[in-house]
């Protein structure tokens, strides 16, 4: 009788994933709260990884009827090293592990925070739960498909650069063996006959000569088998596979004039990073263009964008103009999904704000999927806000604006901007 051994390693790897999902679903409220706290605590840059989440122990306890402290308890312990019958001792502080005390309190009593790790996907799922990119559908329908070249086995014809040496040589070797096989067999037979004949007759006998001639003839024939034949050639095959273009470019526009201090820039940065992460979930490939401006705009790299500080006045339209230029040069809007996000403290040269509105309405909004404006200010909205208000009213689907007063607002505002809208 041999035992039955079942190897289960391959099946149902994630049996608990349903239960795990149930757990997360049940405590979504608390978990989302914890996620929001986590964002406030750490740099946005490492949002990409998973997150350790704590949920208060009390919320997730599974209560049962238990005895509490008190009453008469009798416990037997091992390892007596000093006690005699009748000894008395002071009661150790409750909950301690000392002699005589009960075990640690039962479930639900004074349990610490329940800490566990969300995977990156789970984390981002909760993070961006119920958010959607606006106008995703429109561009997807209109988009041009790109092609990607993929390997697709081997063919017998092609261009010399695609010759696959291994396959070719393997085929050639096989062919040589196959064709040369009968010659080799005959050769071995003749050689055996020759040796046998040499034992019996002198080397110059007619029989021996005939055999030697035949052997030489066979050898010549075998030599004539070509080492490589056009028939053997194999080419790596590549085919073109239509590739949906899921690329996006994100324009980050930020005011770096004197009124934007470091704290405001930090808030803007966090907002931009959230947007980047969010786009990342929807598009395979994302490019980011950083444009900063005071009275004039320039395209900079990320580091300069967030850390350099300028002084001077503010002309917002300069940044918008640069954005239009860059779109025209590098991101023809057929192949790219374009998103714009502008952060500013709202301070602008008074005459400039109407220009901004006009630029946005006429030149930018027709090209982009979505344009969001956040005003980082604690006080009253500034003039740019009022100008943009008209846009928000007329171009509701494409344009939105929100105000951020402190770091705590960033996530709610982000959620508000990208809330799933029922169109």
């Amino acid at each position, binding site marked *: 009788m041999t035992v039955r051994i079942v190897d289960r390693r391959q099946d149902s790897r994630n049996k*608990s994933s349903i239960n795990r999902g*149930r757990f997360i679903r049940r405590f979504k409220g608390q978990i989302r709260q914890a996620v929001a706290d986590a964002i406030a605590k750490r740099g946005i840059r490492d949002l990409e990884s998973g997150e350790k989440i704590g949920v208060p122990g009390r919320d997730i306890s599974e209560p*049962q009827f238990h005895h509490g402290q008190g009453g008469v308890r009798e416990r037997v312990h091992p390892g007596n090293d000093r006690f005699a019958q009748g000894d008395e001792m002071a009661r150790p502080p409750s909950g301690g592990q000392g002699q005589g005390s009960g075990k640690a309190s039962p479930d639900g009593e004074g349990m610490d925070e329940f800490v566990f790790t969300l995977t990156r996907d789970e984390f981002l799922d909760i993070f961006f739960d119920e958010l959607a990119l606006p106008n995703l559908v429109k561009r997807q329908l209109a988009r041009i498909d790109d092609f990607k070249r993929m390997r697709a086995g081997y063919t017998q014809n092609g261009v010399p650069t695609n010759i696959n040496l291994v396959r070719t040589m393997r085929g050639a070797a096989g062919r040589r063996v196959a064709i040369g096989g009968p010659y080799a067999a005959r050769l071995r037979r003749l050689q055996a006959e020759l040796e046998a004949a040499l034992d019996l007759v002198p080397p110059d006998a007619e029989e021996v000569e005939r055999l030697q001639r035949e052997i030489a003839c066979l050898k010549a024939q075998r030599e004539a088998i070509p080492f490589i034949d056009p028939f053997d050639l194999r080419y790596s095959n590549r085919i073109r596979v239509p590739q949906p273009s899921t690329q996006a470019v994100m324009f980050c526009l930020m005011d770096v004039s004197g009124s934007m201090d470091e704290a405001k820039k930090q808030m803007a940065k966090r907002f931009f990073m959230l947007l980047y992460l969010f786009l990342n979930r929807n598009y395979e490939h994302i490019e980011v263009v950083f444009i900063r401006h005071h009275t004039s705009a320039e395209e900079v790299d990320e580091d300069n964008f967030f850390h350099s500080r300028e002084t001077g006045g503010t002309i917002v339209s300069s940044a918008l103009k640069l954005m239009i230029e860059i779109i025209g040069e590098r991101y023809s809007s057929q192949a790219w999904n374009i998103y714009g996000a502008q952060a500013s403290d709202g301070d602008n040269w008074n005459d400039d704000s109407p220009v901004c509105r006009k630029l946005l309405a006429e030149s930018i909004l027709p090209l982009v999927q979505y344009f969001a404006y956040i005003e980082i200010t604690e006080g009253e909205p500034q003039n740019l806000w009022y100008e943009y208000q008209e846009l928000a009213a007329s171009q509701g689907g494409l344009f939105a604006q929100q105000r951020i007063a402190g770091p705590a607002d960033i996530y709610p505002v982000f959620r508000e901007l990208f809330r799933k809208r029922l169109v």
Partner: protein
Amino acid sequence: MTKKRSQLIAEGSDWTLEAIAQYDAEIGRVARNYGLDTYRHQLEIITAEQMMDAYAAIGMPVYYHHWSFGKHFLETENRYKRGQMGLAYEIVINSDPCIAYLMEENTLTMQALVIAHAAYGHNSFFKGNHMFKQWTSADAIVDYLVFARNYIAECEERHGVDAVESLIDACHALSNLGVDRYKRSPPLSLLKEKARQQEREAYLQAQVNDLWRTLPRRDLVVEEAEERRFPAEPEENLLYFVEKNAPLLEPWQREIIRIVRKIGQYFYPQRQTQVMNEGWATFWHYTLLNTLYDEGKVSDGFMLEFLQSHTNVVYQPPYNSNWYSGINPYALGFAMWQDIRRICERPDDEDREWFPDIAGSDWRETFDFAMRNFKDESFIAQYLSPRLMREFRLFAVLDDDSKPNLKVDAIHNTQGYRTLRQKLAEQYNLGSSDPNIQVWNVDLRGDRALTLRHFAHQRRPLADSSLVVLEHMASLWGFNVRLEHQARNGDWVLLAERKTERRRQA
């Protein structure tokens, strides 16, 4: 056959399926020589992750879905990843065929240890012990679990995940009071369960209407009716009572309560035979592998590795150690079985005085009797020897909250042996460690409030979490639930009350 050269079963520390099969065959042969009677068994090789899955589902191969299992999984995963715990080497399922899990990370030696421990040790205990025989049916459990999972999944589809989830929450909260402790419940049978399920739905719905029949019957004298309690006898199985009598539950809800109750009942014997069962399995892996060593079938290296993990398992830290968390059931159980064998084979005068029945008897017969007929409480009361109490240096501490100090009322000396043994046995009595709460009355004529009574043992109060449990009870019952306890002067006073007024939705 390489065995001609060497007697060894297999060498090296990496396992292969063939080596495991060979070990199993050899261990099985030795086990049969010792007369171990087991269910057929099946070895399943799983990964660490699957082991954690199994943990979360209390070792069951199939289980219904619930968030709390997800929580346990996360907890285990977390602790395992941080290195705070190793995974248990083995999980074994009391089913026929008995399923034992082998983890792929283990070495060949450890696999042999697990086979001996689980597939022969635990397995024979499951088959022989009266608790398991009476309360569980090994041949039906896996089928029943499959039925339970499908049924609950169906309910989730029909009535929504949330409704089912909150119902199961409530059932889990009451599950340790959802078992019959004394009354023997009929064994599980999947066929019967299915056949009767329809019938039961209709019947139950008719039955509970007893509570609705508020008009007194004409032939009943009114005073008498007021005297009458319902239930006539207090009911200890709260879930059973709710399942049969809660007025507002839908048939599917009753069925789910029944499922949780039945599964709880299935685990009840395991909770009551921890020391015996683990000790028994440990004794047998120790004995079987040593026998193989004596026969020259395993190498010295094998034995060293095996003994190293064996001694870890049976280590008992003393009361003042940082690692102390109560008595290690493996240590106590293993020591007791070893000691019984010693008493049988090499009794001294003390043993003859304490154990006249078994001193010098055939140890296999004594073992068989002890394994079949006891549970932890009675096993310790019967077999814990003075020698073992000295070895463990046991002492009993009395903690009476009406006295200022703790008192040591027995130690391992002549005056203390009997007290010590009785106290230790009492410690394993689930009847006194779980609170005793019973259904006392239902106010049939008034607001249908349910009254529970807590019969305190040794004046022990209920923990605060009980109030939350009461909430669950109220949600199941559908009307007010009161919890009473006995005051010092003997009167029953209200401890807590949960009001609910759930009306049937039109």
